[in-house]
């Protein structure tokens, strides 16, 4: 079964760039442009991965991440990659503290590299799951 990915990104060009390239790689992709919509969608459906921007209208990415990681919520364990152009270390650290699974700088990573990161993440995840099963 194909992996489902939610993209929360306000910039139309960037959003569609990832949307298209990930769809071409066979992922099922949904994309929204603001934090509130993203949070609602993430809660109403189950995704295998959420790509989350930080500078978002209405609600910023860190706040969304906090909400997603709320104890007992359906999204508590959903993997989240922050896909952002904010490279400030304090923010990167804060993101991992809250519970981010990856932090990609959009400008630095070419789409191809982003896809590679995602695919290798899923590969690793599969391995971990298999390990867990074997145990």
């Amino acid at each position: 079964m194909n992996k489902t990915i939610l993209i929360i990104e306000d910039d139309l060009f960037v959003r569609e760039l990832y949307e298209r390239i990930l769809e071409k790689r066979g992922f099922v992709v949904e994309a929204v442009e603001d934090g509130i919509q993203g949070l609602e969608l993430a809660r109403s459906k189950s995704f295998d991965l959420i790509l989350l921007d930080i500078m978002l209208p209405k609600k910023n990415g860190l706040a969304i991440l906090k909400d997603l990681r709320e104890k007992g919520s359906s999204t508590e364990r959903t993997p989240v990659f922050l896909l952002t152009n904010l490279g400030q270390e304090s923010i990167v650290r804060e993101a991992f503290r809250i519970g981010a699974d990856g932090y990609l700088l959009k400008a630095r990573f070419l789409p191809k590299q982003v896809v590679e990161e995602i695919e290798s993440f899923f590969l690793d995840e599969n391995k971990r799951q298999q390990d867990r099963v074997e145990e």
Partner: protein
Amino acid sequence: MISFNLKGKLTTAFVAVVLISLILSVVSSLVMYRIRTEAEVSSQLHDAQLHLSESLMDLEKRSFLQSNFLRQDISLREALQKQKNRQDLIQILAFLKRSSDLDVLELLSLDDRVMARVDKVSSSGQVRDKYGSFLERVKKGEIHDGVFFWDEEILIGTLAPVRSSTDEVVAVLVAGYTLHEARLTSLKMTTFDVFFLNETTFLSSQDLSEEEKRGMRNFLKNIPIGSRKEREFTISGAPYRLEPNELTDTEGVYLGTMITAIPLLSAQLADTRLRLALLFVNVFTLIVAYFIASSSAHHIAEPIVAMTQAAKRIANGNYQQKLRISTGDEVESLARSLNGMSEKLSTTVSDLRSVTQQQRAVFENIADGVFSLNKDGVVTVFNKASEDMTGLTKDKVEGKHINNFLQLEIKRKPYSFDTLLNEEAGKTAREAAIKRLLIEDSRKISVVMSITPLIQNGQKGGYVVTMRDVTKEQQLEEMKLDFVSMAAHELRTPITSIRGYSSVLAEELKDRLSPDQKMYIDRIGIAGDQLLSLVENLLNISRIELGALRLQTQPVDMTELAKKVVRDHVAYATEKRISIQFLQPEKPIRKVEADLFRITETLNNLIGNAINYTQKGGVTVSLEHKGKMVVTHIQDTGVGIPENALPKLFTKFFRVSGVLEQGSKGTGLGLYISKAIIDMHKGKIWVTSKLGSGSIFSFSLPTAKITKEHE
């Protein structure tokens, strides 16, 4: 020169009025005195009549005795014939006086001298004045009885001629009784006459003609005894009022009638004249007073009216008032002051206007939103910045309650403006917390507000609210972002698209593109990369220079790191058709104490540079120990660096000029940043190079302290 002329004028007017009043009062009092005198006279007259009646009671009897006696007095005649001296004459008169009980005996010569005199009182005055025309008649031989007014007394007596033996009149003897009462003198003040008459006698104070005497007797006859009827009577052509007064002795026996004759004309005339004079003076005074008053009013009031009008015009804002008043007094000086005042006022007002305009301009151009509220929270003033900040217009909000337009949130909870006003008034701006304003339920802005009570004339008249829009800052604050990070973020977003789409395009079209087309797309990608590295470098520099760059060191395995970075650059090197390799060290390299992120950046930078400046050959990365340091070498076979450029190599924006066409794509910031990072690690960075034979960039990092944790 302005003198005290107004004072003079007023004084003159006052004095004039007082003088006129004085004249009036003097005249009035004179008239009153005159009238009073008349009244007094009539009362005195009455008294005199009473007195006369008393005196005359026995006088009547004796008078005639005496006159008879005188006529027969031989001794006197003899004495005169013998021409006795004055002393002898006085002795004779004294003898006569004693024997006759007379009051006065006077012997007069024909030339009106007093030859001798015996009298109870001294008498002065001219003989002629005393006896008048009677004397002449007596000199001719008549005997005359009469009432005579002397200075201080009335004499009722007889004037008789003293004849010589030849029957010639040689002297006149006056014999009579005086009425002694001094108050009778007051009778002299008036011009009335007194007559006494009975059947046999007619005594008169004035020389009456026989006809007049008859008339007076007739008048008396016609009056019944006891009645006091008055009558008008003409004496010597002048009208008199006769007032009869019957005189009786103690036993009530009628003696005669005393008639007082009061001149009518003088009294009446005087009365009428006085009234007229009084009227005239009154009218005159009135007229003069009117003219003085109206002239004073004109001179004093006219300019004052003009000034009043000028003052009114000034009050209405017309400050250009020029009064032309030249009365030469205080009024003129007042007018000048008024002119001066209006001039000053005019400049002051225009100064004030310009100050007000200036202040208004300052107020309107303050970058912070400033508005004022009255005590009830109604907006009174709303400046331009407030308008810009809230999107509301001054016309819309002024005069209305602030709640109509702005709702307040503090810590995301609604908050009442009124409560805030009470709480915040007096806090300084620094204390004031950030508030969120909801503008008409649509837009939200974050502001720092300071509220100060508006004190006007010592009274609290509302509030002045200053607000600064901190929405942007607030958002950044919430993100814990600084401006540089923010700017970098904004720049990276389009770079993401440029790099992303160009790479996708190149990927998707790679089999259908001509070599030229492929090159074009690659160049877009490369330009994107350069732009990105420029942004990154600028961000780093600003952090370095702000001292905001903080190292997060940890033990780092340089072997692993170098391998990874080399691997990342294989694609680029291959593209440039040069080789890149990592020289595996012979013995294991100790970990270094370093910030992984920053060292990665530095390696990226140095290796990137090496590839950039190398056209053929390759780049080799190697590691070695040097004391307590681990040294990393990046060696290329590129163009090399001219010797003179070496000292400036690690400075900001320095680039080696004149190098290859593709070599000029660096920003000139990479080495500067790398040096800063290595310096912060307490390491060293250096270069050895020869133009044309490549360069070796090297940096050293301290080895990590070996702990169990790190093993």
